[in-house]
């Protein structure tokens, strides 16, 4: 790896350094735009006691759900979880902790973490269990709560295309949390469907500039669909 070439040769190399007890921020919404091969690598590494920051926790047998199988996750920071039975079981048995965070606040916490904003005020969650223990302050006559930003030891991200310098473009709504996750990892690992040469992507149309990306790998993806809704042609 020389200069700005972020491409690594294997998934082992992509996730090297991930250790027990670390915090991992993951892109994805439901099963859409999830870094499925990086998640599989985390499973293979058998690291434990992870804190995972992700909007959801996958389903039984796919996405982040597979990290539940060997109880690798200690804590989830998410807006919506429990789409799978194993999650529910571990939660009820006290093996898994969940910090529920409103979806927009979660996105903003990641963005703020990457952008050097340690905390911000939002009206979201005021007067609800989310506000417990948080400072309340009025702005423009309305109460807001203070939310702190999030950074991770690792961020795992699913892109569509990237150049070797780590400039990433996302496809359709597979974008979701990925751009914010990419900014918030001490080590940010991106897997994509296609790696191109620098100069092939339009500089004004980069979703994640390469400065945020430490490692890049090309993979193939199952892309499972959670709610397959179709209309007749």
């Amino acid at each position: 790896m020389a200069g700005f070439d972020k491409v690594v040769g294997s998934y082992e190399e992509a996730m090297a350094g991930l250790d027990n007890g670390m915090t991992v921020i993951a892109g994805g919404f439901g099963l859409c735009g999830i870094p499925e091969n990086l998640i599989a690598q985390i499973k293979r590494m058998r690291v434990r006691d992870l804190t995972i920051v992700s909007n959801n926790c996958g389903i039984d047998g796919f996405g982040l759900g597979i990290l539940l199988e060997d109880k690798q996750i200690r804590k989830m920071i998410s807006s919506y979880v429990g789409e799978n039975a194993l999650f529910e079981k571990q939660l009820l048995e006290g093996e898994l902790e969940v910090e529920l965070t409103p979806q927009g606040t979660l996105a903003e916490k990641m963005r703020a973490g990457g952008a050097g904003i340690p905390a911000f005020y939002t009206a979201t969650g005021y007067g609800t269990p989310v506000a417990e223990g948080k400072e309340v302050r009025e702005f423009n006559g309305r109460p807001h709560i203070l939310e702190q930003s999030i950074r991770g030891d690792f961020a795992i991200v699913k892109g569509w295309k990237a150049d070797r310098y780590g400039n990433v473009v996302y496809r359709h709504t597979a974008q979701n949390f990925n751009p914010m996750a990419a900014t918030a990892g001490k080590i940010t690992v991106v897997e994509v469907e296609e790696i191109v040469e620098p100069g092939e992507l339009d500089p004004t149309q980069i979703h994640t500039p390469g400065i945020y990306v430490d490692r890049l790998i090309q993979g193939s993806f199952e892309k499972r669909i959670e709610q397959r809704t179709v209309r007749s042609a």
Partner: protein
Amino acid sequence: MALSREQIAKRVARELKDGYYVNLGIGIPTLVANYVPEGMEVMLQSENGLLGMGPFPTEAELDADMINAGKQTVTTLPGASIFSSAESFAMIRGGHVDLTVLGAFEVDVQGNIASWMIPGKLVKGMGGAMDLVAGADNIIVTMTHASKNGESKLLEQCTLPLTGAGCIKKVLTDLAWLEIENGTFVLKERAPGVSVEEIVAKTAGRLVVPDHVPEMTF
């Protein structure tokens, strides 16, 4: 008679205006899209990062990378835009969405809403609901007026953990259209064939009943 799901959606659709950006929650709110009045354009925002949501795809159009906030496969309409979750909630939190329609377990006379958590049951999370109720100025809550065993869901004070405080002004139940003003529900319209007495009986929170309460027509 109590409104059907479709009638609820139809009644909500009358609140649409041409050029509205609208976020529709999962369930009955989603049906509102089917009743946009002729000659009117509205654009649907889906909080996972899509503005200008189209109908479900055909088999040929099906794409795992193209979903809505309910995780259903969808399409885009011309003039759509797709963006990150942070940008999506910037729109929502910043008050740029003209109308938000969502369901609830309870609402109360202070405009509080409880929609995400029933203690003792497994809590799956609030998703984007807290951001939606905190960010929107114009929210319609759709819900059944009372539980199956007759307990009112329109309360003096919510009993369940809140989704948002003081943010609800309009409620459409299967029995009535109500607005929340100065710490009371105000009965604005009743479902066809539903008596004011029934609504009064099933509303636990303070309720103002005007002299004339028009009946909805469909």
